[in-house]
């Protein structure tokens, strides 16, 4: 029994000597991942909350009816449409679209009102940049259609009412009632909520920030494997063979090494969490919160048993993946390249870089079987407080199954390398 315990203990002691280097490397990696995520999310959120799509308006909006319609669109509820309309000439608009300061411009053709009076509806033209497409342009297109309909329908209604008033000799009431009619039309006939069905990404992916936080944690655990090069890689099998000859089977050697590595991995993760909490405590001490809870008190409630269990399962599973990858190679550069490629591909397909809802259905179905996706969902559920046993159990089983498969694969590769016939 002693010989079976001595080896894993010594391997763990050996790996523990690398703990400071692993911690520093992982902190650096965490910092890099956090910086990239903050930059991406910060830019995205800033764009969502502050910037509007700038659209030029070309044409004469000074007339009472057209001007009223334009004014109504501008002032009604600009935040709902997230557009900034800027009046300009066509030359200015064209130049602005070309240099990117305007997304597009809407051109109300000359003689639009006259044509409308004659029963013709001249189309409002939308001009977008040559390489633009996608959501922004589609919104523009919809808005321009809406504007066109809005203006033309308003005008039709107004002209119809003008005829009615003239027929009944009520011209003096026309101006006042015209305004009232327009307002009634705006509130009753043109229901804004029926123009657009707005759905948010957050409905499918949860809060984007929470999504990326859970994804970032899994990326961190995954890329910790780069440290595994110095800990798990075996350049030759002489020691393994000699130990096998002395009565320690290869599978038990592998188990000892894997468990030591997984334990080190957990210690590094715990180190990072403690460093984070310490940083939060220091921050609160240096800059006490003016009101409400400090950073530390805000973060502590998230460190729940569910989160710890999710992270533990993720570490055990992904450590087995690291073990598998390094079991098959004998050179450092080979190992690092292989790991990087596998980690990047796995992270991408699992939706750790972009929300999974962006991908086609086939990819989403495939990703649902991957351990990295299960890990992310488990951590996300734990962070958001929506962890349910019935939903968590399949994910845990997925992680366990993959972990066992990875470990078994690693043992088989080691056995193959260690085969007596070289």
């Amino acid at each position: 029994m002693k010989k079976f315990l001595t080896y894993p203990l010594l391997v763990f002691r050996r790996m523990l000597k690398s703990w400071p280097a692993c911690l520093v490397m992982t902190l650096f990696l965490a910092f890099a991942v956090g910086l990239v995520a903050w930059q991406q999310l910060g830019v995205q959120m800033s764009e969502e909350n502050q910037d509007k799509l700038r659209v030029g308006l070309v044409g004469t909006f000074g007339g009472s009816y057209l001007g009223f319609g334009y004014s109504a669109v501008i002032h009604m509820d600009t935040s709902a449409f997230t557009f900034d309309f800027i009046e300009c000439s066509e030359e200015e608009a064209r130049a602005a679209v070309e240099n990117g300061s305007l997304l597009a411009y809407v051109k109300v053709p000359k003689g639009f009102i006259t044509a409308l009076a004659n029963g013709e509806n001249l189309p409002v033209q939308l001009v977008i940049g040559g390489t633009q497409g996608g959501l922004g342009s589609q919104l523009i297109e919809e808005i321009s259609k809406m504007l066109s309909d809005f203006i033309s329908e308003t005008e039709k209604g107004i002209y119809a009412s003008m005829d009615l008033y003239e027929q009944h000799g009520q011209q003096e009431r026309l101006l006042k009632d015209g305004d009232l009619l327009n307002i009634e039309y705006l509130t009753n006939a043109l229901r804004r909520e029926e123009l657009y069905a707005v759905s948010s990404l957050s409905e499918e992916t949860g809060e984007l920030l929470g999504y990326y936080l859970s994804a970032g944690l899994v990326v961190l655990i995954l890329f910790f494997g780069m440290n595994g090069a110095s800990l798990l890689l075996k350049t030759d099998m002489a020691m393994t063979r000699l130990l096998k000859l002395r009565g320690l089977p290869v599978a038990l050697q592998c188990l000892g090494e894997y468990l030591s590595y997984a334990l080190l991995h957990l210690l590094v993760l715990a180190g990072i969490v403690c460093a984070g909490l310490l940083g939060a405590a220091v921050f609160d001490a240096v800059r006490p919160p003016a009101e409400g809870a400090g950073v530390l008190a805000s973060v502590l409630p998230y460190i729940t048993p569910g989160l710890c269990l999710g992270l533990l399962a993720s570490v055990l599973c992904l450590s087995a993946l690291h073990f598998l990858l390094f079991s098959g190679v004998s050179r450092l550069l080979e190992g690092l390249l292989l790991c990087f490629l596998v980690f990047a591909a796995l992270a991408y397909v699992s939706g750790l870089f972009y929300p999974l809802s962006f991908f086609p259905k086939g990819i989403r179905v495939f990703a649902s079987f991957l351990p990295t996706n299960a890990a992310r969902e488990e951590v996300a559920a734990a962070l958001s407080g929506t962890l349910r046993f019935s939903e968590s159990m399949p994910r845990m089983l997925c992680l366990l199954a993959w972990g066992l498969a990875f470990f078994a694969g690693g043992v088989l590769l080691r056995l193959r390398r260690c085969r007596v016939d070289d």
Partner: protein
Amino acid sequence: MELRIEHIKKKFGKKEVLSDICLETSAGQCVALLGENGCGKSTLLSILAGTLRADSGRILVDGTDILKDHKCRSKVLGYVPQGTPLMAELTALDNLRLWYSFCGRDLSGDLENGVPALLGVTEFLKVPVSKMSGGMRKRLSISCAVAHQPKLLLMDEPSAALDLPCKEAIRDYIVHFTTSGGLVLLATHDTEDLGICGSSVILKGGRLHAMYTS
């Protein structure tokens, strides 16, 4: 103890490295294995040690075929390979603990008057392997290989690239080992090692060409 190597053959692909190797020797001797690079000395020692499998043949130790009886082989045989298979991040003491754990023997006793003390390993017990010189590593490697007190010791160029005092220390140990009734098979290029060897065999083209007894 008697060692008999009978008709050992080994091929790597199409190249026949060992062809019908036969050798007989007994306890209390040090047999030098001589030959040019690539003649098969390390291959023969590896087959004896069990890290390579022979294509055919038998290796009998006191009548027991150790190619089939792995337990007997691990008990009887000690192997010092060309490299030094040690855990580089750990100290000499930790490496010794690992190998002593397999045989269940008391390490502290041997540190006082056993092989580690004889080879001077006790002087650098707390030094990590990564910080040791070549001579220190080789002496530690030998100490680990004989932790279970084997009767047959296989050594593959143990004094290669070592300084003279270290070579002397290893030679002194080999003499001590054979004097105590052990058998040593020593693959070497160093002619000075022949002074401690009772007999020598020359390997050439995968065959044993001559055997000299001094």
